[in-house]
């Protein structure tokens, strides 16, 4: 049998802000090509977890390995090289207000792939905009876009470097149900077409059910239970079942 290759390994990660313990021995492994949703209540530490994975926050203790590299041992340059292989979709989209859509998309390209020519850049921008269905917005400013469009552009910016891993932080939060569903379907399509591994941080059950192969429940700073959607709702843990009620 073919052995699955882990791309993210999280072991016994602890993180506290003052007396507020957010992660209290969290464990999770994500394998190549797998899409894992981390579900939890608001303020349960989901965003903290994902920021620890990308190195924006440093865990107090524990071990995080991404694409075979222990992130706590990486230099600044090595971390930048790793980040080029890991896309991050921010909860607030984090599009640069002062830049057009094109400039927003070119920004990571120019930073990570400095050898790329202007023609190649343009082709990559248009390709990724077409993949999210918004090629006509290329010269628009983020402020001129709707919430759903901004999310798609943020997703396009995440995809432009062709990442091996994509981290989604609450991708449907703040969107109306229809737009949320469109984004969910788009994420699913992208995952199938690009074969990237991903972690979806959310409290949106529909998103988790449609887009994730496996769900990890983050409760009280720990991974309380993990498995397929059907396994979780068939389980007996009241804390987990309360989430699905």
């Amino acid at each position: 049998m073919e052995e699955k290759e882990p791309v993210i390994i999280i072991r016994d990660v602890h993180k506290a802000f003052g007396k507020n313990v957010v992660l209290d021995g969290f464990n999770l492994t994500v394998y190549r090509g797998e899409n894992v949703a981390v579900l939890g209540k608001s303020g349960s530490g989901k965003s903290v977890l994902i920021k620890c994975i990308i190195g924006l926050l440093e865990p107090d203790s524990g071990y995080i390995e991404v694409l075979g590299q222990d992130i706590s041992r990486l230099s600044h340059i090595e971390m930048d090289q790793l980040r080029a292989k890991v896309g991050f979709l921010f909860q607030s989209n984090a599009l640069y207000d002062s830049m057009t859509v094109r400039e927003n998309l070119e920004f990571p390209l120019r930073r990570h792939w400095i050898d790329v020519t202007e023609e190649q850049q343009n082709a990559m921008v248009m390709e990724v905009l077409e993949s999210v269905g918004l090629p006509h917005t290329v010269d628009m400013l983020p402020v001129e876009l709707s919430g759903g469009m901004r999310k798609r552009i943020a997703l396009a910016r995440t995809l432009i470097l062709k990442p091996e891993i994509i981290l989604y932080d609450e991708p449907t939060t703040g969107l109306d149900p229809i737009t949320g569903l469109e984004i969910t379907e788009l994420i699913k399509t992208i995952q199938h077409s690009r074969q990237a591994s991903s972690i979806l941080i959310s409290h949106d059950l529909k998103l988790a059910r449609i887009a994730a192969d496996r769900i990890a429940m983050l409760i009280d700073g720990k991974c309380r239970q993990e498995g397929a959607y059907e396994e979780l709702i068939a389980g007996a843990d009241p804390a987990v079942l309360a989430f699905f009620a």
Partner: protein
Amino acid sequence: MTQVPGQKPLLEETGELSVFAARFFREAFRPPFEVQEFLHQCYLIGYKSLSLVGLTAFIMGLVLTMQLRPNLVYYGVESQLPAMVGIAIIREIGPVITALIFAGKIGSSIGAELGSMRVTEQIDAMEVSGTNPYKYLVVTRVLAATLMMPLLATIADAISLYGSFLGVNLYEVLSWKLFITQVFDYLDYEDVVPAFVKCFFFGFAVGIVGCYKGYYSSKGTEGVGRSANSAVVLASILIFVIDLLSVQVAELIW
């Protein structure tokens, strides 16, 4: 002493600001250099402030002349008006008023911009995109503010003197050539050099305080407003402190 909610103790804030400023000197001279963004900031901070600084400088020169004239007439020394106004503008009023206008416009705008970038995760996004946000956002803005402030103050001095010239001509006829000759006859290096040098420090103070307040902004939109506001207040206080110190240092040297 009662502490305002959300505000840090004075010593803690001073310490953090010092560490933040020290990081500027570490990062500013280390490649890669964000030349394009620096030039863009020079345009925004320098050129875009010119009309406001110019207008206030013109009014300042005009009003100062109109206010001083009656007393000089009373003592029969109205012929000294250009020299007196010239020294006052170039030594003190020009740089300080320009710095305060600069703090109000640039300090608040940097504080609000970086604060909003912080709360909407744009600074995090920049880091994830392989960019050092401190270098890209802070170093470029502080450097631009430091270099643009003396230029703006010099232009403001010139416009202010022209306003003063018009002020003199409201009551009597005086040629521009005679006016400017009288101004420069009484000016010395010790008037011009310290005033010009302290402008670099004013610019640095406005830039670093604006960036510090914005960079560490928190608590959503309320925090952004607070960052912009406290950037102006702290930068204005620092301008007066630097002014006081620069007078002492200049007196020691000359």
